[in-house]
């Protein structure tokens, strides 16, 4: 599903190159649950951003479902967002002026899903996440964990093939964090959705099937979880 070859990312400042990523090559298959780990500044978020096409690598090739993404134009990229990629953020990034239901509905609007189907899908997801009662509340009326649930529901509603999550539990307390990770695991196992998350937590990483350890922009370790156990 994802092929990275020799990805490099650096910023040149006054002639001095500061590398964020060096020689990153890896491939991720459909249905994997990958955790990217490493100390602060190792380049985890940059790697995730590149995977999410929010940033471009300075060098290297990136293929997403067989397509060369580096040279992709905006319209194609938006198509990928609409149909294949769901994002989950550490700070949830819900739209404050919209209710829970409206937030979840938003990606479907851009996908040009018909109104009736939007309604049923939103209802579906609300039901699945046990949030029917909260559907008319605004984000600031929810707890952090609940907001992140909405964030995930929003990512899922468009039925993506991959979810990119940047420290999804970073702002949450552990019981809520566990709940989120259980949800990810379930989605990964039952619906075969590829999940790539950035995390600091060993516990969270343990829910996945594979761990990429980054240090100073280089992949130090690439563990399949069976090996860890």
């Amino acid at each position, binding site marked *: 599903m994802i092929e990275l070859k020799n990805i490099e990312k650096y910023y040149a400042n006054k002639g001095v190159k500061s590398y964020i990523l060096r020689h990153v090559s890896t491939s991720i298959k459909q249905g994997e649950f990958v955790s990217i780990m490493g100390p602060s500044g190792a380049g985890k978020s940059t790697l995730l*951003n590149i995977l*999410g096409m*929010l*940033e471009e690598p300075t060098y290297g090739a990136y293929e997403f479902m067989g397509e060369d993404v580096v040279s992709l134009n*905006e*319209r194609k990229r*938006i198509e990928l*967002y*609409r149909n294949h990629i769901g*994002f989950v*953020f*550490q*700070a949830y*990034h*819900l*739209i*404050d*002026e919209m209710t829970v239901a409206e937030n979840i509905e*938003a*990606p479907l609007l*851009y*996908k040009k899903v018909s109104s009736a189907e939007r309604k049923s899908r939103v209802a579906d997801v609300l039901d699945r996440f046990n949030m029917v009662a909260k559907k008319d509340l605004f984000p600031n009326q929810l707890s952090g964990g609940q907001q992140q649930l909405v964030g995930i529901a*929003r990512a899922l509603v*468009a039925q993506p093939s991959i979810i990119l999550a940047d420290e999804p539990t970073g702002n949450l307390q552990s019981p809520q964090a566990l709940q989120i990770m259980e949800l990810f695991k379930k989605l990964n196992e039952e619906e075969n959705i590829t999940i790539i998350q950035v995390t600091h937590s060993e516990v969270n990483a343990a829910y996945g099937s594979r761990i990429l350890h980054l240090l100073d922009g280089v992949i130090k370790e690439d563990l399949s979880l069976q090996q860890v156990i």
Partner: protein
Amino acid sequence: MFRLNLKIALRNLWKYKGYTAINIVGLSIGLAGCLLIFIFLKFQLSFDKSEEKRDRIYRVVSSWVYPEGEFFTSGVPIPLIPAMRNDFSEFEKVAAVHQGGGILKIRNEEGGADIKLKQDIFYVEPQFFEIFKIEWLSGKPEQALSQPNMVTLSEKTAVKYFGNWRNAIGKSIRYDNKADYKVTGVFKDFPENSSFPFKVVFSYASFDDKFGKEWGWVTNRSEGYGLLKEGLKPADLDKPLKQFIDKHYTEKSPAKEKHYFQPLSEVHHDARYSNFRYKTVAYKELIGLGVIGLFLLITACINFVNLATAQAISRSKEVGIRKVMGSRRKQLIVQFLSETALITLISLGFACVLTELVIPKMESLMEINVSFHLFTEPVIFVFMFILIVSVSFLAGLYPALIMSGFSPALAIKNKISSASAGGLGLRKVLVVAQFAITAVLIIATLVVVRQMEYMREKSLGFDTKAISMVNIPGDSLSRLKYEPLRERLLQLPGVHDISLTSAAPISSGNRTISFKYDRRPEDEKTQLNIKMADENYLKTFNLELIAGRNLSKSDTLKEFMVNEQLLKTLGVANPSDAIGKMISLGDGGGERKIVGVVKDFNNMTFKSTISPIAIFSDKHAYAAMAIKMDVKEMMTTIKKVEQEWNAAFPDDVYEAQFLDDNIQNFYKTEQVMGVLFKVFAGVVIFISFIGLFGLVSFIATQKTREIAIRKVLGASTLELVKMLNRSFLWMVLIANLVAWPLAYIFVSKWLNGFVYRIDISIWPFMMAMVLSVVITLITVSLRSYKAANTNPIDALKYE
């Protein structure tokens, strides 16, 4: 503390260069507009204000009440002044003034060329100078204007004629080749803002008709002034005035004669009456201009409020920290207000430069012979001070209150949301107000421009192209030369036709007279407008004859041609029925037959209806030659005409004006209005839309996060631009709805001043809407495209 605050203020202005530039540009233009309007208004309102006794000075004016309405004139019958002096004990002084004009000749004693020029002159009674205070450099009015053939000059005129005013005394000036006048005095020039453009003043005793006894005859060249005794009120004059009118108007006449005492302060502003400058500026127009100035200022202030509240969040941290450090709210308010004052002050600097640049343009537009300077009068500084204070408060108070009210705990944690930083609601209301002002001005401009076009293009019912009106002297000797000159001019190539006449079909000088039709015993209820012209009038002006025949050649009144309007007022349905009917003019004039009926033509501006008109020959009344020329050879022909004319009348001064220019002059005020509207509407539109740009920029910045989220959810740039446009388009639409009725009221009021006018159609309104929508779309899209195109990752970094 103050210096620190100033430093922070300057740094802040520098940090947000874009917003600062928008504020300063908008405010500078707005302030410059205000300064210009202030200078103009001040000049117009200063007329006759320097007169010491202005509160006691009154002009006596006349009116006639006809069944169809009241007609006003600034003139009075000549015997009225002596009668008033006799009958009114309420007046301390009474003075008559009569305007004349003719050829002045001044012999050059040093052997140079003589001066010969056409000049307006005034016959003035010496009492005038006891009512109006003018300094005399030489002579005293009581003596210098006491006898016939005495003339006094203003200082500048004396210098112009004699090189030095001291030389002028005792010299003689020949007037109209008839009599010599001795210079007996020199007075200081009347100021430019005086209603009396007196340069050459003759003694009233020199006036031929000074003992005139005709109460039924009035020209606006004769005016009368009175100085009320101290302690009396204008109301004290009501009773004696009524007695006065009853006493002197004993003859039966179709109209009821009336007189009023007009205060001096109204002379420059009451459009019903003329004055010797032939220029009145109604208070209505001045108020209109003032309102435009206010609009300018308000739109600029709205920009300021919008941008300042929009920026408030970025300063919330500073507010929080200052509060924690112990600053009180009042101190913060003072700080923010002084920042506003600083911006206003900077803008005022630019505005002054701008004003100085534009002043010459304004002078030429308004045709004022005064050179204005920004700083000649101290009162401008007072005005500027008021501007700074009011703009600072108007623009600065609300943002200052909002910003100083932030809770420090939230502010420091950067948790001030846009909602608490001054409601978006208020900002919306302000934007709507701004757009509404813009829309009103767009509509008004479109209508004014359309009406001007309509007046330019509407046919007057006669030819105006390539016709030059050339003056001809009216003395008996000159009259003999009319025909030979006409013959010679007709020989010139490029001259098509020539008619001798009292006035062009359309003219500001209209003579009216009472008349009898078809031997009816009573005078008709309406007055007849008369034009004296020879048999070539029809052909020269291409007037259309619809019944009967043209006038036959004659030097005196022999027969009449009339217009359709006269038949309409007389109730004659078929034009040919009027042929052969008799008309007699005035009291006791002989009867003459109607021989022709001409199609109606506009004899006055489009502000008035067509009058009933009679055209007849009378050589004694001719004052001009209408020369119809070939358009292509006009310029060369007119030069030859001048040569021939000068050969025929060597003692007179040649004057010519193209009829087209003449007609344009009737609409001077409207044209000035048109230009002003175009300019100020442009300025207000500009200010509004840079303000809009600023606001959109801010909203785009504020919504960066939302835009980024939507982008990763799959929104395309186009969809985001649409989203940002939507709310602004709503505001523009609402603003237009607010503006329409206001604009309608204003525009229909203005158009009601014209008899011949365009109908108010929906188009200007639609145009205003479309224009503002399009400009909004462009402005918003430009900025939001940029916002929608930024990389979402920049906005979605950890908070």
